[in-house]
């Protein structure tokens, strides 16, 4: 079907998207064809109901439309680097390196060096390729046992400027049973009030979204995820968000939480020590995992 179909063009008429000449054509059809006129009225009622129903979801905390509009013309704009408070030179360097190791090992972000500055408030593991599992509990259970996806996601809060890092390609970490598949591409969307970062998965189909809106609260994020707005946002920008269902049919959303910086530092130190203990060299062996 093409837009030559009057029913399709009627969508534009109802939404006020047709120019004057096109709208006039639809008006003629309405006047000449009672069934078509009835179709228009029903479509209007249908759209009004749907719009109202969807509008019950609390709006995002910022102007999404403005963000999207910006991103239409700018695929990727690195955010400006931000100064970081350094408790001490030694602490800074070790913590810095350890954080990088932890991040790389943890999330398999091969292109992490593309991120010049990051304040990662939320991380959400997700997969589009596994969407069909929503309606297949048995398959979902089977999938979760291979550690590539979990029935629940986690989020981290990490505030670091990421330096150039060694190439850890081929390595991934089974973090909280979350994701084990390496990531192979990255898209970053610069927004006035934050950054959306999307890492698309490889064979595991796992994606990670860093959702960087300072005003976003975990509660609102979860609420929007449940009600579809995040899913909608994601689906239109190459960002997939988890919306899995558990075997008992319950919709699982992410557990959005922030980790205190102190905890991140502690984990980073532990990860660094662990990595140093495993390898004398900088690059770990293939298949290395850190848990």
């Amino acid at each position, binding site marked *: 079907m093409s837009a030559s179909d009057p029913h399709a063009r009627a969508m534009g008429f109802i939404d006020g*998207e047709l120019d004057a000449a096109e709208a006039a054509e639809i008006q003629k059809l309405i006047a000449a064809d009672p069934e078509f006129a009835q179709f228009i009225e029903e479509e209007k009622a249908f759209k009004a*109901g749907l719009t109202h129903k969807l509008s019950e979801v609390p709006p995002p905390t910022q102007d999404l439309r403005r963000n999207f509009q910006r991103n239409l013309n700018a695929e990727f704009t690195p955010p400006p680097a931000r100064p970081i408070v350094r408790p001490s030179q030694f602490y800074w360097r070790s913590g810095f390196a350890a954080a990088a190791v932890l991040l790389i090992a943890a999330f398999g972000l091969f292109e992490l060096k593309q991120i010049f500055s990051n304040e990662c408030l939320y991380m959400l593991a997700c997969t589009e390729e596994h969407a069909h599992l929503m309606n297949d509990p048995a398959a979902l259970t089977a999938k979760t046992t291979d550690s590539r996806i979990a029935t629940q996601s986690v989020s981290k809060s990490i505030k670091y400027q990421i330096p150039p890092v060694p190439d850890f390609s081929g390595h991934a970490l089974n973090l909280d049973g979350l994701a084990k598949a390496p990531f192979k591409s990255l898209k970053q969307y610069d927004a006035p009030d934050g950054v959306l970062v999307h890492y698309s998965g490889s064979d595991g189909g796992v994606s990670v979204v860093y959702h960087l809106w300072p005003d976003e609260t975990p509660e609102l994020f979860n609420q929007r995820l*449940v009600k579809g707005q995040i899913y909608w946002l994601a689906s239109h920008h190459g960002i997939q968000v988890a919306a899995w269902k558990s075997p008992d049919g319950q919709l699982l959303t992410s557990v959005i939480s922030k980790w205190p910086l102190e905890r991140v530092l502690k984990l980073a130190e532990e990860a660094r020590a662990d990595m140093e203990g495993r390898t004398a060299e900088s690059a770990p062996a293939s298949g290395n995992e850190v848990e």
Partner: protein
Amino acid sequence: MDWKSLYGALLEDELKRALDALDAEHRDVLLFTTLGELTYKECAKVLEIPIGTLMSRLYRARQELKTALLPYAKERGLIRNKADQTGGAA
């Protein structure tokens, strides 16, 4: 079909399930134009499709969603038989 009554009675999860049941391309267009405040032109640019295709997908999405919502309408007694399903606007 009394869409106003149906939407009023519809649970959010039921609507989400119905939306999830749509063809992905159709759902994208529907949500983008209904919820996203984007114009057809903007939406078409993001999705990299002609506006005519967008309108076609939108039409199909709305018809698919209506079909997906019919069981809920039946459950609530808002529709009694197949003849009613095509009985026109409320």
